[in-house]
């Protein structure tokens, strides 16, 4: 446990800060093609500036930043008010890293550069109506026919599917196998005939995800990443890429939101009573702990090669805390918080529900913490 500072890191921070101050775009559209265009243009700009793929190795065109440099970049990014990576998120944080670890040379040279320069974006294709928390139960089928894999079935909760060019698609290619076995990870073409994408409106009123329907969609077998029937292994290799820096921006944004609510409550006529201040003090403590937990994950990332299941503790804490923070405005600020004008508490509140559902519900995370961190037995058996 020690403070880590160096002249090089300080220099790197100033470099980030200067570039971001001159280049961060504002007024990201809420949804639609305008949002996609905005996200891709911002990616292109970061590419020109030499910041694209901050955690990608330089041999694949990334910045190749160390874990601490990544942390500094994300801190400065959040402090500069940088927009979410949005439509580029899956490509940068998941599909690209998967190709880097498991793709062949041809796949790497075809798909990685267009991610970094912001010309092509990706979506994920894992969850299905019958396979959400129970992902290994997925059924969407892939059958080998000549040089193609023929896809039939459906994927759901596909974030920004309607705006994506490619898809990391996990399908069942061995019908005799169950669970994690017999799956294949393939690069899906979102422009392929037979694929229909139906946007789904969220409770926040935005069309940020979709359901995809595959009716004899043909994908060339050369798009398989890793080996046929070894898709689970391909999907899991990406985990080693995550070093805890990805959530730094969310954590800083949440801390800023708590400070904003504290300010608003104190400025309200009559000020704040003790019960209100206590609620705020606890939230403030919790966002500080979230910062410390994030710092600890990053510290572990500097010492370990593959992150353990402990990341679920940070994710659970963030998911639950973000809900409490966003709900607090309504408890503390009265009826004015209901209006969308100004800071738009309703939008933040409605949107934040996703953090305790997507990527693993809080309940699934508690199971994982119980079983894989604490070593409690799986179960229960039927009684």
């Amino acid at each position, binding site marked *: *446990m020690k*403070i880590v500072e160096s002249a090089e890191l300080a220099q790197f921070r100033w470099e980030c800060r200067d570039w971001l101050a001159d280049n961060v775009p504002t007024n990201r559209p809420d949804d639609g093609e305008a949002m996609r265009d905005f996200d891709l243009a911002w990616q292109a700009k970061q590419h020109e500036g030499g910041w694209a793929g901050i955690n990608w190795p330089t041999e694949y065109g990334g910045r190749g930043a160390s874990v601490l440099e990544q942390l500094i970049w994300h801190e400065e990014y959040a402090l500069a008010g940088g927009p979410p990576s949005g439509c580029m998120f899956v490509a940068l944080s998941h599909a690209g890293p998967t190709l880097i670890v498991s793709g062949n040379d041809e796949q790497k040279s075809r798909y990685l550069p267009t991610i970094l320069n912001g010309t092509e974006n990706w979506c994920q294709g894992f969850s299905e109506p019958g396979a959400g928390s129970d992902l290994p139960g997925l059924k969407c089928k892939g059958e080998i026919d000549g040089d193609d894999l023929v896809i039939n079935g459906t994927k759901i909760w596909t974030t920004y599917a309607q705006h994506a060019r490619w898809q990391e698609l996990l399908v069942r290619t061995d019908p005799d196998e169950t669970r994690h076995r017999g799956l294949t990870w393939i690069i899906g073409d979102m422009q392929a005939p037979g694929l229909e994408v139906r946007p789904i409106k969220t409770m926040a009123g935005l069309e940020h995800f979709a359901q995809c329907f595959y009716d004899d969609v043909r994908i060339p077998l050369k798009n398989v990443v890793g080996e046929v029937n070894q898709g689970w292994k391909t999907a899991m290799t990406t985990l080693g890429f995550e070093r805890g820096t990805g959530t730094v921006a969310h954590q800083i944004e949440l801390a800023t939101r708590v400070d904003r609510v*504290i300010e608003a409550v104190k400025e309200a006529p009559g000020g704040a009573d003790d019960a209100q201040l206590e609620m*705020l*003090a606890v939230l403030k*403590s919790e966002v500080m702990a979230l910062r*410390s937990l994030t710092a600890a994950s990053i510290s572990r990332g*500097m010492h370990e090669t593959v992150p353990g299941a402990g990341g679920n503790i940070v994710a659970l804490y963030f998911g639950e805390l973000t809900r409490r923070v966003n709900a607090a405005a309504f408890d503390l600020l009265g009826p004015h918080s209901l209006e969308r004008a100004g800071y738009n508490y309703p939008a933040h509140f409605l949107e934040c529900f996703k953090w305790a559902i997507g990527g693993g519900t809080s309940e699934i995370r508690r199971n994982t913490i119980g079983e894989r961190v604490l070593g*409690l*037995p799986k179960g229960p058996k039927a009684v």
Partner: protein
Amino acid sequence: MIVDLIPDEDQSAIEDTIVSFLSDMLPVERLREDKAHGGAAESEVWSQLCELGLFGLGLPEDQGGLGLGLPEEALVARALGRHLVSPGVLAQLCAPHLATDEATRDALISGETRAAFGIADGYVLDGEGAEWVVVFGPGGASLRARSDLSLSATDGGLDNTVTFERIEGGAGNAQPALRIEVLVAAYLTGIAQATTDMAVEYAKQREQFGQPIGAFQAIKHSCADMATRASAADTQTLFAATVFGAGMDDAVEAAAARTLAKRAALENAKANIQTHGGMGFTNECDAHLFLKRAMVMDMLGSDARARREALTAS
């Protein structure tokens, strides 16, 4: 500020030394016997405890210390909490920092003279054998000679493993003591961790409906929440200790650590009792000891009002 929150080799060695000493010499089970109460068990092993050299850990070498810092002291305080070591031992770790003359400081570092914790207009905890009292309240801490305090005996309090002597007044010239605030948080974090471990262990062993109760989500999720609370409190406490004195707002960092450590200790201690069911309600199960000690330790130092003010000031 960028920090590495993983203990380095030397820090791990310090922690391993104290943990193995406490597991051997002062296991929590000792408190099942009345004769171990009131710091008596600690007095029995006092000379060996002093030989570990803990009490000068965070003092500069020219003051007779080891020249380490608050992170190392926090690891020790956490271990003391895990083993429900007498509050007096934590006071001994804090007292040399408050000593104003060299002779007093040296005697406290060596353990030749002993310290106890006290709360102004409240109680001295496990004061027997102590010459000094670290009186620690919302206004800060002062080191008082025990003989200068107006004390009277009591029949005991909520935690029957600790002795309580009533103090009239006693605040003295209290100085801000954020370092001690962080160490109390670390002690409470130790309680939050120990109760998590105890609940998880029991959930693996205890069978009902033909399987370990830890297989049921009601128990599994409670354990996961305990681990998460303990982790958040612990990580914030170690963060506060690591950045202490380095230009961040120590008062806010300490207040956050203490707020979370208090909640984690109390909530986990209660959840541990609940996980143990009927056994948890008995005197022979150690679960109640952690709850009682957490409630007593939380009376030291800052109160909720002081923490609210620090955390919501902007």
